[in-house]
Each structure stands twice: as C-alpha cells, then as structure tokens.
C-alpha cells in the first residue's frame, strides 16, 4: 500500500528540523526552488542535493519509506535525464535532474517534519493581509492540506482502475484508464465537498454582514 505517497507523511520526532517554525521552512523551500531554476548549473544542483540529503539525515527520516515513495519518481527523473542529455547535453541534464531531485527531497523533508495543522496555521497567517483583497486565508490553507491528503488517495484509485482494466484485457487502452479515473476523482471530490459542508468547514464563522 501507499506506494505512491509522493510527499510522504508527517513523522513525529523532536529533531532541530521539527522544531524550526514552518514559515522558515516554507521560505527556504521557496528560495531554493527559485535559486535552482535561475542558476541552472550542474554544480549548484549537486550542492543543493547534498545539502538536502544532509537535511534528510538531520530530520532522522525513515529511509525505507523515502526510497519506497520515490522509486516511481526516480523512473520519471531517469527519462527526463535521458531527454535532456539528448536535447541539451550532459551538463544541462545533470543540472535539471539533480535540481529536481533536490526539490522533491526537500519537500519530503518539509512534510515529514511539519504537522499539517501547523502548516495550515502558517499559511493562513501569511495570507491574512490579503483578506482585504477578497482572499479567504482559511480556504486557501484548507485547499493546501486537501491536496496533500488526497494525492495518495487518487493514486490508489488509479491502481484500482489499472487492475480493473487489466482484468478486462484493456492494459494499453488509455481511455479505459483515464475516463473512469477522471469520473471517480470528480465524484469523490463532490462527496468530500459535501462532507466538508456538513462539518461546517470552510464556512466563514466570523460574525459578518448577512
């Protein structure tokens, strides 16, 4: 199970990385993402990857879980590397792929060391100034955590549908995969929405004009 839990889950612990405020971690991740894209040099991507690996060690993350969840991504990265090597040469390929790997690992560190509840609070607080422009910070924070929660769920559905398609001998038929997946994900989203509404979540409870 859980073979496609891309970003992993929170792993309770008390390391330095668990104690740093989520805001700082989010900013570091953001700066790192921008730097990797802007610099796009092999040495920089390599340095970033080494640094992130250090963070993985510092956070005492479960390596088994990490490897299991990144296995499928590794295939994607290998394909991407081959493409860039062919199109833009080895140096560019290394810069792109190592950079991307560093970012994926960095976001895994973020989710492993930060409870969603804290992340939600941070995002909500950071967006508070935008309230006057009509942004509802609670709703944006909620959207973030729903995204994290339902990625593995959608993956599970995709595997079920793949098995169903296989059972009927439709392995290679893209439509036999994508059509039911889309329909089921949308149907599931509707029932999640209904459950949220029933729980009164996302409804603005602050007293206001009616």
């Amino acid at each position: 199970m859980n073979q496609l839990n891309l970003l992993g889950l929170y792993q309770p612990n008390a390391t330095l990385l668990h104690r740093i405020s989520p805001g700082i971690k989010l900013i570091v991740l953001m700066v790192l993402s921008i730097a990797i894209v802007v610099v796009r040099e092999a040495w920089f991507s390599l340095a970033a990857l080494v640094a992130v690996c250090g963070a993985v060690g510092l956070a005492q993350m479960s390596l088994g879980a990490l490897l299991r969840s990144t296995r499928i991504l590794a295939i994607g990265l290998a394909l991407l590397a081959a493409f860039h090597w062919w199109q833009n040469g080895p140096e560019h390929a290394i810069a792109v792929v190592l950079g991307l790997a560093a970012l994926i690992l960095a976001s895994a560190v973020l989710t492993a060391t930060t409870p969603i509840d804290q992340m939600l609070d941070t995002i909500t607080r950071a967006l508070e100034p935008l309230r006057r422009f009509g942004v509802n910070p609670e709703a944006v924070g909620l959207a973030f955590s729903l995204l994290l929660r339902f990625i593995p769920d959608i993956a599970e559905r995709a595997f079920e549908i793949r098995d169903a398609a296989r059972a009927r001998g439709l392995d290679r038929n893209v439509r036999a995969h994508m059509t039911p997946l889309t329909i089921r994900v949308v149907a599931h989203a509707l029932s999640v929405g209904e459950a949220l509404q029933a729980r009164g979540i996302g409804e603005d409870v602050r007293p206001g004009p009616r």
Partner: protein
Amino acid sequence: MIEFDQAVVANRLHPTTLALGEQRVGVIGPNGSGKSTLVRLINGLIEPDSGRVLVNGLDSQRQGRQVRQSVGFLFTDPGAQLVMPTVIEDISLSLRNTHTKRTERRAAALAILDRFGLKDLAERSVYQLSGGQRQLVALASVLATDPQVLIADEPTTLLDLKNSRLVGDLLFSLEQQVILVTHDLDLAARCDRVLVVSDGRIDFDGEPQLAVDHYRASV
C-alpha cells in the same frame, strides 16, 4: 425537534410533513427511494424546492450555518469524510472554530479520542486504519463539535459484522438525538420510531417492528 413542513425536492421527494422528536429515529427503504435526500434536507446539504425544514426552530435553508453547527452528519464512506492526513489532525480540524490556540486544540482533540478509546491512533495516517477504525474516527470527528443531533447515513454498510455492531452500539449509546438511515433491519428495530421511505414518500411511519415487517412485506 426536527420538523418537515410540506418539504418538496423535485423528482426525489413528494411533499413531506413530519415532526421527529424521538431520541432514535430509523429510516429504511430500498436504494434510491429518497432516504438520503430526506436526511440531507435536515442539515441543508439539499435544500427543499418548496416547503421548509426546521431543526430546533432554525430554518435549514435560511440559517444553514447555525443548523450545521448543531447537526452532525456521518457518511457511509469515512474515506470521503476524513479530510486530513492523520487522525489527530482531522479531529483538530473540527475544532478550529472553537479552539483558536493550537496547543488547546490538540489537547481537546486528544481528549475526544480518549473518550472513544482511540487515543493510540492519534498520530496514525488515515490510510493505516481499518474500515471500522476509520468509521469510528469519522464519528469522533463529527461529535467533536458536540452537535445536538447526529444524522448517520448507512454508517455500517461498508463494515464487517464485528465493526458494524461496534458502531451500532456506539450510536445507540449517544446522548444526541440520532437519525439513522440503514439497511440493517435489526439495527432499525432498536430505534424508537422508524420511517419506511419508498418512491420519494413516507410509506410507513411508526413502531419499529411494524415498520420492519411492512418493509419486508413490500419487497
């Protein structure tokens, strides 16, 4: 007290007038007969095309927000209901409106889990739970806000015998008024009053055993 006053939903529910004051109200009937529509009218998930539905005097359409604060809803599939990655985070989400401080919220969430004997599951991913555990966590999440009424829409349909008994017993032990939609006729027979819904109207309304017999005879 839950009151239906000539409530109509086009193609799904004929004009219905009801007053439900009993502690345990069962709703039974065939698939697609309108049971879900009936109970979704109570907390405003579905709005009547005409007529009104009142919960303790509050209109489910015009005062939907207040009604949903006092009416909890337990769905068939806890997978859709548990929206956070871990158990404690899902319970905490229910408490965001009542507890603004994170530490207080966490303590309150742990207390609720403890009440349902689920404390050991607090940091567990909702994926690691069995179907029965998921439904119990979903129930704890709904009851975290201390609603006055609990609507349960086929809460035991996906569960094995042991777990459906567990969830059923728990529902009957609550102090809340419970509206229970179910295909488990033994469970329905334990209610104080049972409605049989058929083709979008209330086909029978009364004594649980008589209602179950009526439903059995109609199939």
